[in-house]
């Protein structure tokens, strides 16, 4: 055993301590997706945190560059897999921008309604999971119960609960079902009731509040410098929402507010998400009111739209159109485009390059999680070990999106 150094200044006895290295993840229940944080601890205080992504790597962008333009949709679903509809719509809008296509109004409202439902499900998952990781299991179940209702609607509309692959270049896979509006109008109040109940359970809980308040603080300027977007940025007081700043679809025609936080701590991020759920509800309701019950959903453009199956099986023109679109892919005009939408976590951007063929020449994704995760070590350095879980939870990092 090493001799104790007794010649300390002021005669104070201090135990010799080396910084302790701790691997958190990549397989840790609180490390959503597969992230590894290499921590350097002094006692329980984090001296240094090295956040490492890349344990979930599918070569997402390269996969997209192998198939046709339409075959990217299933991949886009798997970016942020708790709000796949937002990714689908984001990618569809990018390709449509390149093709110069504007989808009919009915489809725009439909995409908005589905997208905002997806946003609610995204925020419910994030806030619910964060509460659960802090030991609050009941609100998690409450929130998931609400999310189930959304997924039931999604299943009714798209046939799939999670990865819908519902977007199409120039529209969506199917027109809204007959009962879509009633389903939404019936489910939304119940979802909000559940959110309210879950919220009550949490916001009166001392432990929960203590672990969130004044933890993981980031200023608006710092968040911007890290190119944060979405609820995490707004929690720091910057009212930047693409739906308001650069409206797409019909967002400029609906009435909704952009909730912002003040301190930029975990609590603000939690509250901003809950407030956004309420705003999303307003958008869904307005979209439902304004969406026509009949009329075309998809553009009538044989360059990109698949023909009706009845046409495919009975006419040579339909067969050829189907064959060309499936085998060679829709020919997207040569050029490049950057198109961005408000995803569940912020700015979801697609930078696409076309060489005029049926296959994307380059697909580059700007996932909102990537810069946000890059800020994690700044948020937790100097904090206690136990602060990692609520802070990481409040950022809502999604592994699929961070695939770079």
């Amino acid at each position, binding site marked *: 055993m090493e001799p104790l150094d007794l010649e300390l200044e002021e005669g104070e006895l201090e135990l010799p301590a080396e910084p302790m290295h701790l691997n958190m993840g990549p397989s840790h229940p609180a490390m959503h997706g597969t992230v590894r944080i290499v921590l350097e601890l002094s006692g329980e205080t984090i001296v240094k945190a090295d956040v490492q992504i890349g344990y979930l790597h599918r070569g997402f962008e390269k996969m997209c560059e192998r198939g046709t333009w339409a075959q990217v949709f299933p991949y886009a679903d798997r970016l942020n897999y708790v709000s796949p509809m937002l990714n689908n719509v984001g990618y569809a809008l990018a390709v449509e921008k390149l093709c110069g296509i504007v989808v009919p109004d009915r489809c725009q409202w439909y995409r908005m309604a589905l997208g905002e439902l997806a946003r609610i499900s995204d925020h419910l998952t994030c806030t619910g999971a964060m509460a659960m990781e802090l030991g609050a299991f009941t609100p998690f179940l409450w929130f998931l119960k609400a999310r189930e209702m959304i997924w039931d609607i999604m299943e009714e509309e798209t046939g799939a609960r999670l990865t819908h692959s519902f977007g199409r270049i120039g529209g969506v896979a199917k027109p809204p079902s007959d009962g879509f509006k009633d389903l939404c109008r019936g489910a939304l109040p119940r979802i909000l009731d559940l959110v309210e109940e879950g919220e009550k359970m949490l916001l009166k809980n001392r432990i929960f509040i203590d672990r969130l308040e004044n933890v993981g603080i980031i200023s608006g300027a710092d968040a911007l410098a890290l190119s944060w977007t979405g609820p995490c940025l707004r929690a720091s007081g910057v009212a930047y929402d693409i739906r308001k700043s650069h409206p797409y679809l019909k967002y400029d025609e609906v009435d909704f507010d952009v909730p912002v936080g003040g301190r930029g701590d975990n609590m603000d991020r939690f509250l901003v998400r809950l407030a956004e759920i309420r705003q999303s509800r307003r958008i869904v309701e307005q979209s439902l009111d304004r969406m026509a019950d009949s009329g075309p959903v998809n553009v009538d453009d*044989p*360059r990109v739209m698949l*023909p009706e199956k009845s*046409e495919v*099986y*009975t*006419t*040579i*023109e*339909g*067969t*050829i*159109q189907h*064959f*060309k679109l499936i*085998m060679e892919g829709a*020919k997207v005009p040569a050029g490049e485009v950057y198109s961005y939408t408000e995803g569940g976590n912020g700015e979801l951007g697609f930078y696409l390059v076309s060489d005029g063929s049926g296959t994307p020449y380059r697909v580059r994704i700007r996932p909102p999680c990537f810069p946000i995760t890059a800020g994690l070590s700044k948020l937790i350095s100097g904090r206690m070990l136990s602060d990692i879980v609520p802070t990481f939870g409040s950022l809502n990092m999604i592994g699929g999106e961070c695939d770079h």
Partner: protein
Amino acid sequence: MPTFKYDGVEIPFEAGETIIQAAARQGIEIPHYCWHPGLSAPANCRMCLVEIMPAANQRAVTLDILEWDAALGDYKPAKKPKLQPACQMAAADGMDVRGDTSHHVKDARKQVQEFLLLNHPVDCPICDQSGECKLQDYWLEHGQYHKRMRDEPIHKPKAVEFGPTIVYDAERCVMCTRCIRFMDEVAQDPVLDMRERGNLNEIMVAPGRQLDGHYTFMTEHVCPVGALTTKDFRFKARVWFLRTADTVCQGCATGCSAHLDYDPRVNRAYRYRPRENAEVNKYWMCDEGMLTYRAAHEGRIIEPRIGSKVASEKKALAAAAAALEGAAAEHLAVVFSAQHSLEDNWALRELGVTLLGAKNLYVSGLPDGYEDKILIHRDKNPNTRGVAEIAADARPFADLLRDVGSGKITHVMALGGATPGVPEADAEVLRRAQVVTVAAHEGGLSLSARVVLPACSWAEASGTYVNFKRIRQVTEKALEPQGASAPGWEQLAHLGRAMGLDASWTRVKQIRAQLQAAAPAVTSARGAALPTTEVAQ
């Protein structure tokens, strides 16, 4: 050079050229079905119609038509310019031709497309042309309409056997008459014609005849749609799974430029398509040549052999070295192969002549056969001229048989399996000597060989071939080497090293550099033929 304008682009042309020819030379494709650069222009498909603006001092020729007015809900009289077929219209200096920029032309293309598809069957899923069909391409580029005719389409004969090689489907036919013109103008055998008119129009074979001869496959290849299919390729592969390598036909000394279509998933060649080469084969190939793609898989040697037993590569090399051990230079024969590439033959010369000092050089290959005045050459080997370049003093194969018979030759180091005679009979004589051969295909030499080392065929390794006109062409690698085969020059290097010799070549680049230095002719990089200044014999 005079020029005309097509959609505002200046296009130079030579006197007598048509608009479509001059545009094609500039890389601008005016849509067409019936026009083929190697055939006459009947202008019957009407797909290449263009609008030619009247000269300043001329009045426009217009036609009175009735045009549908959706707002009015009725037809109203209108005027339309008289469009001209670009395939027949001779270009004139200063002509202003409109294609994509004229809505009349666009309408015409769409309507022609609609007309051609009026009675077309819903066959894409079972049609061999699907994926390389002009009807499909042009529908997307120029059609994009939905079917208006709701009547039952006219049904015509399907799967009509035209002869031993070709099957005809009248419903898919667009009556471009390319096949008729090909048989008439190129094959010089006017055996095809058309009968009936309008909806009932169809191609027929002359009564009492069938579509046979040496150029039937070409009728399928000039067919812009799936009306003519070859029995050989029918239902064998889907074209979108095939990849293409530029290659050279191995059927005879003409060395036609060809595309070799293969499926990389199963490492199999499926067909040849002629590759345009004005110096060699223009746009055409013969039936026998088209079928030589099969040689990539048939009659192949893909495993090393000692005697008749398959052996490991290591053992085979050791056995080969042992077989040639102690062969005196005056009793050693080096047998070049007119079936193998220049690179393989070069390596054999390095090994046999430079390193072993052999003096007795021979050349083997397949025997002569049918020839005609169109494409087919009497010599059935693709590289006879190449061997003559490599080994000018190589003697014919008959001399080898005589020398082995007389005991003058006791050891044979050979390339290739093929011999001009009956394989078994040639092998019988050759067995008196110790034969080692590096071969891609079975033949008299491989049958008699003490050791056979497997070489890549032309489909599996890039190689240079010199045709009878001394035009050099380089083939691209298509398939992955099958079994234990390796390029012939590489196998020869292995053999040299197994014999303890300094066989230093390891890359095809080195060999090409040597060949380049030795021969004045330029070896083209991507297989396009570059003729030498020498004139054919």
